[in-house]
């Protein structure tokens, strides 16, 4: 599903964000990317979302090479992704259900399919009673759930969540992580970045990637949380 070899990422200001990253994530895996702030985990996720492109090295997601020249193919690839952004990125002035539906409007689904899938997703995240609430009136936790509902309603092959617990208290954060983990299945991989390693001690993940200073410091069982 995701294959990365010797990936380097240097930003235009010269900052080397990622160095010699090698990753291999298979379909249906639950993966955590951890590291302190500024370690490079968000940069790695930006590569996976197609927001940034490797300066060198090879990155393939669902068979698509991630290169700047492949912009139109990468747009199509994004239709198979379920991104959950750190700052939620919900569309203001619209209700919760409208935001969820918006993520599906260009997937060639009928209006009834969109409606059904978005209602199901809102139910899964436990917000079936907030369908018509404007997103401005939702709490942080609820906003994060709507963002997750928008991602999962699309039935993506890959859910990518960037610091989904960043603004939440411990209880809410654990709930959100458990919720995201629940969407992992045989066809859907879930990748979550977090700096709060204490929250995932009891998690049932398949892979743990710890990044330090742009390098993969340790992976899976080699990492001690």
């Amino acid at each position, binding site marked *: 599903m995701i294959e990365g070899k010797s990936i380097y990422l240097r930003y235009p200001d010269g900052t080397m964000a990622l160095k010699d990253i090698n990753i291999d994530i298979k379909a249906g895996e639950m993966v955590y990317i951890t590291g302190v702030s500024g370690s490079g985990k968000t940069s790695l996720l930006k590569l996976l979302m197609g927001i940034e492109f490797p300066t060198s090295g090879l990155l393939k997601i669902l068979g698509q090479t991630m290169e700047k020249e492949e912009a139109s193919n990468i747009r199509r690839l994004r239709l198979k*992704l379920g991104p959950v952004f750190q700052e939620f990125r919900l569309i203001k002035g619209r209700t919760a259900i409208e935001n969820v539906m*918006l993520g599906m*409007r*260009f997937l060639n689904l009928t209006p009834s399919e969109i409606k059904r899938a978005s209602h199901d997703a809102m139910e899964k995240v436990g917000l079936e009673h907030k369908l018509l609430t404007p997103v401005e009136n939702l709490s942080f936790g609820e906003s994060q759930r709507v963002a997750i509902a*928008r991602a999962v309603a699309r039935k993506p092959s890959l859910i990518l969540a960037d610091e989904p617990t960043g603004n939440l208290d411990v209880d809410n954060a654990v709930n959100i992580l458990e919720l995201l983990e629940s969407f992992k299945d045989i066809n859907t991989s879930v990748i979550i970045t977090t700096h709060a390693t204490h929250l995932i001690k009891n998690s049932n993940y398949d892979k743990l990637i710890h990044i330090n200073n742009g390098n993969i410091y340790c992976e899976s069982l080699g990492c001690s949380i």
Partner: protein
Amino acid sequence: MKSILFNIGYFIKEAKTLFKINLLSNVFTIFSTGLILFILSMVISGWWISNEVVRVIEKESEINIYYDEGIVKDDALKLAEEIKGHEGVLEARIVKKEEALKRMEEILGKEAQVLEFFEDNPFSGFIEAKIDLNTIDSVIEDVEEMYGITYIRDNREVLDRLYSISKILRILGVIVVVAVGITTLFIISHIIRLGIYNNREEIRTLRLLGAPEGFIATPFLLEGVLLTIGGGALAIILSNLTLEHLFTMMVGPLPFIPLPPVESLKTGLVIITTLLSIFLGIAGGIFGLVSSKVK
């Protein structure tokens, strides 16, 4: 395509939301576009009316041939027959002085009472000849040579002046259409750019979710069309009221000007203004979208 059809309701709703976000700017845009289109519709009306007048005058092209009042009735009839036989003359008949007076009374309407100041009928009899406009010069040249002819009155001078007015209005119309087009394009594209800037985060989010550019752009295009149609509607209302007023003012005192029917003029303006509004809205929207690339 399927996605566009399924999302028509969403696009309209989004366009309305975009309109509401910049409500005051959009209302001002509608007013300024409306006034610009109103000026355009007035120029088009002027051109239309002058064209119609030229057309009617061309159709009714005739010359009035005055003859020596001393000649007898039979000679006048012969003269009319001779003129009728001339190439380019479609019809020739004698108009008696009584008929000439009656015609003037009809033209003057209520003002005809001025004719009562004359003790005798001030008009003379004449031969009225309808002619092919292309042969007017040769016909006049030949008729002038005929025995008993004293004076020929033709409408060439009037036609020439109307041609000039029509030509000026046509040129003015083209200039105004171009000026209005460019101005409207700038106004609409500026508003669209403003909308895109205000919604740049939403646009980025949609792109990250994989939305095609066409899907993102459609509400902005609709907003542009909504603005110009609003302006067009305002222009239509203003021009209809103005034309109604102008026609009422002109028909009474200037009854001899062959104005086109006001209803057909209004209908024509509605069609032209609406089509132009839609075109300018789409063009302005595309221009605004192309010139503001949100990265």
